[in-house]
């Protein structure tokens, strides 16, 4: 419990600053405390791995950082923005600019080709058609799939799908990438490729990455590891 006692101390250069966050879910009459006073600081340019047993609240914490959920109490400050203070639509706009989300099951849109999937977040910007397409192709090039731009998700392997998903996450050039078990559904070779890609994004493109994983080898790629245990950080 010591982690939550001095939350403000190291926040100066933190890009992601989670302060004293409590998250409870109401199920019928029962209240379930999933996160019980979490504080976590991630400096800019970090690559952080979040580990912990199933049900310990990793996804919940990640969702808070990504701004797709709100804490019951406490603050989540990402790149200087207090996420909880934004309205629903402000939060949506903020997400489109500030975070890239990578899912375990890729979650590409099946009716769209690779490049159209990558282009999707840019539809929310004022960019013209050409510019959008150019940027999407660039992102695909970064993940090494420039030659698959017109393929549909069903025509790609799992590892390729995940790389398209990563291209989609970086196309709007957010500072933070969050990934929920990005290699959880991949064979070890594909997983290796994805992790290498994430390292590159971290090292060369200066993306700050928060990654949830069960896989110790994946966690080893990160600079820092945090362990969640029953809603509290354990080291």
């Amino acid at each position, binding site marked *: 419990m010591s982690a939550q006692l001095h939350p403000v101390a190291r926040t100066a250069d933190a890009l992601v600053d989670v302060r004293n966050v409590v998250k409870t879910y109401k199920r019928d009459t029962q209240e379930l405390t999933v996160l019980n006073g979490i504080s976590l600081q991630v400096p800019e340019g970090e690559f952080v791995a979040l580990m912990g047993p199933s049900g310990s609240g990793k996804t*919940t914490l990640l*969702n808070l950082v*990504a701004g*797709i*959920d709100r804490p019951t109490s406490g603050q989540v400050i990402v790149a200087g923005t207090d996420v909880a203070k934004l309205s*629903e*639509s402000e939060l*949506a*706009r*903020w*997400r*489109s*600019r500030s975070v890239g*989300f990578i*899912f375990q*099951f890729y*979650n590409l*849109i*099946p*009716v*769209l080709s690779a490049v159209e999937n990558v282009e*999707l*977040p840019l*539809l*929310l910007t004022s960019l013209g*058609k050409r510019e959008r397409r150019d940027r999407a192709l660039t992102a695909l090039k970064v993940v090494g799939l420039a030659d698959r731009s017109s393929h549909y998700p069903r025509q790609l392997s799992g590892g390729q799908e995940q790389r398209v998903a990563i291209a*989609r996450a970086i196309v709007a050039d957010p500072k933070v990438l969050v990934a929920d078990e990005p290699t959880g559904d991949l064979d070890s070779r594909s997983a290796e490729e994805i992790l290498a890609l994430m390292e590159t994004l971290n090292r060369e493109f200066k993306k700050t990455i928060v990654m949830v994983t069960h896989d110790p080898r994946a966690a080893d790629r990160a600079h820092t590891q945090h362990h969640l245990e029953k809603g509290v950080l354990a080291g």
Partner: protein
Amino acid sequence: MKFLPFIFKHLKRNWIRTGSTVLAMSLCIFLFCTLQTVLHEINGLLEGTSANRLITRHGVSLVFNLPLSYAGRIASVPGVKGVATTAWFGGSLPAEKEGAAEKDTKADEGAEATTDWSKFIPSMAVDSEKFFPLYPEYQINPEEFRQYMSDLQGAMIGRKLADKYKWKIGDRFFLESFIPPYRKSSGPFEFIVRGIIDTDPVKHPKTDTNLMYFHYKYLYEGTGQRIGAGTYTIGIDDPEQAGTISKAVDALFENSDAQTHTETEQAFAAGFISMAGNLALLLNTIGLAVSFTILLVTANTMSMAVRERRTEIAVLKTLGFGSAQVMGLIVAEALLLGALGGALGILGSRGLILFLTKAPVIKDVLAGMGLSSLALPPPVAAMGFAVALLLGLAAGFVPAYNAYRSKITDMLRTV
């Protein structure tokens, strides 16, 4: 606009489902447009009637004649301006029109010839002297009318009918009634075109000219002076008095063998086509049921489409699409389904109506009902399209609203 391809791709992806929904929708709109067109026309017929005219018929049924002596007695009722004896002849051209004149000797067989419905001609025997003054909406050349009045075989032809058979003044033709008492043993009635009836298309756009009139006297003499009056057309000064005068007329004959039933021309026309009216009601009910079914079908399609896409909606929201935007995408998809179905239905209806008004026999039956100018009116088409969009909107609203409200975290968890 930049989302339109996205919406299309979804519809295309599940093209069987999309196609069947669009087809179902188009069927509904097709029914709607076709039925409304017929109703529209029937209403048009009713609008073509005058509130200044009453029709008296036999109290039991239109098929019984009334004594000719009634004309004078009706004329004595206060408020009555004029009374004309009339009889619905409902003739058709005998099967072989040309040469019928030379075949007078074989006319007996001619009279037995089966009615050819494709040559049906709405025709009415009228006491011309009294009748035409009651129809000020008819534009008749005075000289032609004089000729008509002086010729027992004369016929006044409505413009549409004249155009249809390319009849000119002086042309002769034969007509035969499908009503047995109006047939004569010596063969069909011969007529000579003496005048053309026009109407002012601006002042009286609904007045039908697909009909003809001839002298009641000709029918009376030709049938051996045995027939009575089919109906009496009564002109009145004050439409407000229509009810009172109708009652007064009927009261005159309350205690006689042939009691009468008097009503406004409009009510009479409505009664005359009440069969069609009832049919329309029935079909409308069916149409409504169909529409409701289509609504369910489309709603089901949309909620299936949306349920399948729970994750996708969550992803869109995660990427920063606003709830309203996501809702808009779904509503737009439903509207597009409606628009496609509506357009197809309207086209289908237009096609059918065009076909019916051109198809051999059918077009004449329609003309006989006074529906010769059947066409899909633009307001009806617009209404059909609006109904389609509304159905789409109604079907898409609930799933769209659910998508609007749904939370990303909940949607991602249930996968």
